[in-house]
């Protein structure tokens, strides 16, 4: 069963149809790319999946459960966690505090934890934060303020915060934007490891080369609709994809 | 029947004065995205200016009226240039600064004119219109006529002049307007002057009817915010329609029940609109 599936999802802003009957599904354990020329509806679709928008029509399912009406935070608690385009962080806090904030919604602890955090749950959270920092290679920067990080590090921290919320499905909004080549390689490596550890990844990305290299499946959007879907190789050879990109460039 | 007709006319007068006040408030929100809490105090300044120039200096009501418009317009422009301009990217800060202006203007009025002074402004047209058994002071009809005239003139200015076009352009999209070479600073200043002058005109028109006091702006601004929310914040047409509906509703409830109930009903109405349709009864769907 797919971990995420969209059925005829449509979003209209007034008369403008930004996403039109988008239907596709994401298999668990895959890295799934969403691409398309500018204005193809990628960002809108992303917001529809994460619950920042409600679709005008259609259905979004997570593990077969209809989540179309759920709020963003409820979806996140079910394991659907997103990152942001650009850098959205707790910029006045340190790296470690940023990651700790990602765990605040955790529901496994008893309610008394909200007022008097038990030492046990505190230390277990601290351990998990340390593990995530390790994972994201941010351990050396744990006490550095988020706003003092380099752009690439900030992007990685954004993903680390999302990891703290225990995602089963991680949605990344243009994670490679503004990164140097080596930062891109390292991030790609990290994403593969996240996938190996059991999470599914959906990413919206402009950088075609990275998408082609990293993704197992790619869905191409154009004018708000799904143009085609397939492996990177299939997509690369698809004539309409070429046309869509060339058309947008002209 | 006679009572009903008089109440309807009183509603019309309340609508006229409220419409003048709220149109200015909606204008300033549209252009600057600022909720001006001092707007009621500009109304108060209009009333005092009318008394000072018209009655105290003996220049007559219409001179007082012109002076009220001039004084409030200058005051409005000054508020924009000295204060709001510095807080253009901080809407909550600007809101709080207007509360500061509110307090200063109230205190200033109390200082210069006293709290319990009994200032009387003579109406330009005295006497009472008696027609088939019902009585209506002429000035109330003057208020209605003047408000209609001013609002019509405002509509013409906004629809036909270059200034009006620029104003609407800024209200719609500040960045795009800026790219087209419209000076946001100049438009903001003019909009603020215009908005203040509308409040001043309303205060001046009402000066012969209401008790002039430093705190007369408070109920006015509360009414204005209720109306603005009913009409959809930033929508001038919505504000005028809501002003008429609300003032009529308020006048009738006040007459047939009492003022407190009318106030509570008004507040609940505003709350209901905020809950059900935050974009206002007449407003377009906008993200809140």
């Amino acid at each position, binding site marked *: 069963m797919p971990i995420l599936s969209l059925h005829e999802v449509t979003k209209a802003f007034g008369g403008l149809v930004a996403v039109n009957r988008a239907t596709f599904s994401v298999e668990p354990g895959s890295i799934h790319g969403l691409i398309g020329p500018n204005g193809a509806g990628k960002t809108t679709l992303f917001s529809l999946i994460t619950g920042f928008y409600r679709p005008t029509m259609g259905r979004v399912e997570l593990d077969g459960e209809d989540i179309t009406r759920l709020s963003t935070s409820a979806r996140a608690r079910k394991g659907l966690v997103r990152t942001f385009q650009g850098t*959205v962080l707790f910029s006045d806090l340190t790296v470690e505090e940023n990651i700790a904030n990602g765990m605040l919604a955790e529901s496994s602890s008893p309610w008394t934890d909200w007022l*008097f955090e038990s030492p046990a749950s505190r230390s277990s959270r601290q351990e998990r934060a340390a593990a995530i920092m390790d994972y994201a290679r941010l351990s050396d920067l744990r006490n550095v303020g988020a706003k003092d990080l380099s752009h690439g590090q900030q992007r990685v921290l954004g993903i680390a915060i999302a990891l703290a919320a225990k995602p089963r499905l991680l949605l990344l909004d243009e994670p490679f934007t503004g990164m140097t080549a080596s930062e891109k390689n390292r991030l790609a490596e990290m994403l593969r490891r996240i996938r190996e550890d059991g999470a599914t990844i959906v990413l919206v990305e402009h950088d075609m080369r990275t998408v082609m290299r990293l993704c197992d499946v790619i869905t191409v959007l154009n004018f708000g609709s799904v143009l085609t879907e397939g492996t990177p190789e299939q997509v690369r050879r698809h004539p309409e994809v070429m046309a869509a990109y060339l058309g947008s460039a002209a | 029947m006679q009572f009903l007709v008089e109440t309807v006319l009183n509603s019309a007068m309340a609508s006229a004065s409220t419409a003048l006040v709220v149109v200015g408030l909606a204008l300033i929100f549209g252009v600057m995205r600022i909720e001006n809490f001092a707007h009621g105090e500009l109304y108060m300044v209009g009333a005092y200016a009318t008394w000072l120039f018209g009655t105290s200096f003996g220049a007559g009501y219409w001179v007082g009226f012109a002076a009220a418009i001039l004084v409030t317009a200058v005051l409005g422009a000054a508020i924009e240039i000295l204060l709001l301009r510095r807080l253009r*990217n901080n809407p*909550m800060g600007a809101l709080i*600064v207007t509360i*500061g202006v509110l307090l200063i203007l109230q205190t200033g009025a109390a200082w210069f004119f006293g709290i319990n002074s009994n200032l009387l402004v003579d109406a330009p047209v005295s006497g009472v219109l008696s027609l088939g058994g019902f009585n209506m002071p002429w000035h109330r009809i003057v208020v209605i006529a003047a408000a209609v005239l001013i609002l019509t003139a405002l509509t013409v200015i906004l629809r036909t002049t270059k200034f009006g076009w620029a104003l609407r352009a800024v209200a719609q999209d500040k960045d795009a307007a800026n790219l087209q070479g419209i000076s946001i600073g100049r438009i903001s200043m003019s909009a603020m002057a215009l908005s203040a002058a509308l409040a001043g005109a309303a205060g001046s028109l009402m000066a012969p009817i209401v008790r002039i006091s430093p705190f007369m702006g408070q109920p006015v601004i509360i009414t204005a915010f209720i109306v603005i929310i009913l009409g959809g914040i930033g929508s001038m047409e919505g504000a005028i329609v809501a002003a008429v509906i609300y003032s009529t509703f308020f006048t009738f409830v006040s007459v047939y029940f009492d003022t407190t109930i009318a106030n509570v009903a008004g507040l609940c109405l505003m709350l209901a609109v905020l809950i059900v349709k935050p974009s206002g009864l007449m407003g377009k769907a906008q993200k809140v």
Partner: protein
Amino acid sequence: MTTTLAIAACAVPFVAGDYYTSFATEIAITVLMLSSYRIVVLTGEWSFAHVVLQGAGAYTAAIMVKDHGASFPISLVAGSIVAAAIAAVLSMPLLKMRGFYFLMGTFAAAEAIRLLWRKFTYFGGTRGFSGISAPYFDFGGVQIDFGRSANYYFLTLAVVAACLVLLWRLERSRLGKVWKTIEQQDVLAQSVGIDTRRYRRIAFVIAAAFAGIAGVLLAYAFGSVTPNRFSLNFALYLMIWAIVGGTRTFFGVIVGGIVLMAFDESLRFAEQLRPGVYGVILILVMLFWPQGLERLIGWTGLYGRGVSKAAPVSSEGGA
């Protein structure tokens, strides 16, 4: 600093006369109001309803004492619960709003409640209640009459101090961290699973519970309750004190409150000019020190790292 403050607070009745002891009682109550208001502010919203929720506590105490002869501890708890319950009901619609809309929504709800107090004789109409008798304790022979201003001052001080300890704990708890998270990055907080509206509601209700306690203390302190004591003007002053004093740190708002109350008292000779002076201060603070006086004086540094960031008035907060 905390101990200095505590010693100074305890010394008041011994060095000052009855007038200033009563005034110190009022300061303590205002500090509780400001500290609890800060919880709402922590989530990034400004409310006009806090003072009327205090009023709910005060009216509850007045009715409990006059109609049911309730004792001080009982009316204290009842006042707190009633205020919190009213806030819980109001929060359902109100917390759907943000920024200016929330401000106006809280104003409408609060003013409607206040007008009902004025309207109905059950609440004493426009004159409210008077003659609320002071608490009187009798612990097996040890009798304390809290009608004496010094005794009531110590009672108030004890209650306020206990509340402040609770508030301090609360801010450092996971709940407090969630509030700050919401204020700093609403959208990011949602995306990691924090139901922001729910936690803003919780903040609103908890703040109201403390406002209710402040209301009960006020009712006993004055021996009377009037609807005008909870009018928009007082809501405005609470907001001004919070903004001018600064809401960045727990102690900032306390020290700011004390300084401003003292300043307020010193303006008593020029009663008429008072609002204008506040207006000028408010504008100067907004233009030049948008994070409040605590930032100016640098109290933040004194109390360890301020976990919360700038007061929300200095960031995007509008509609």
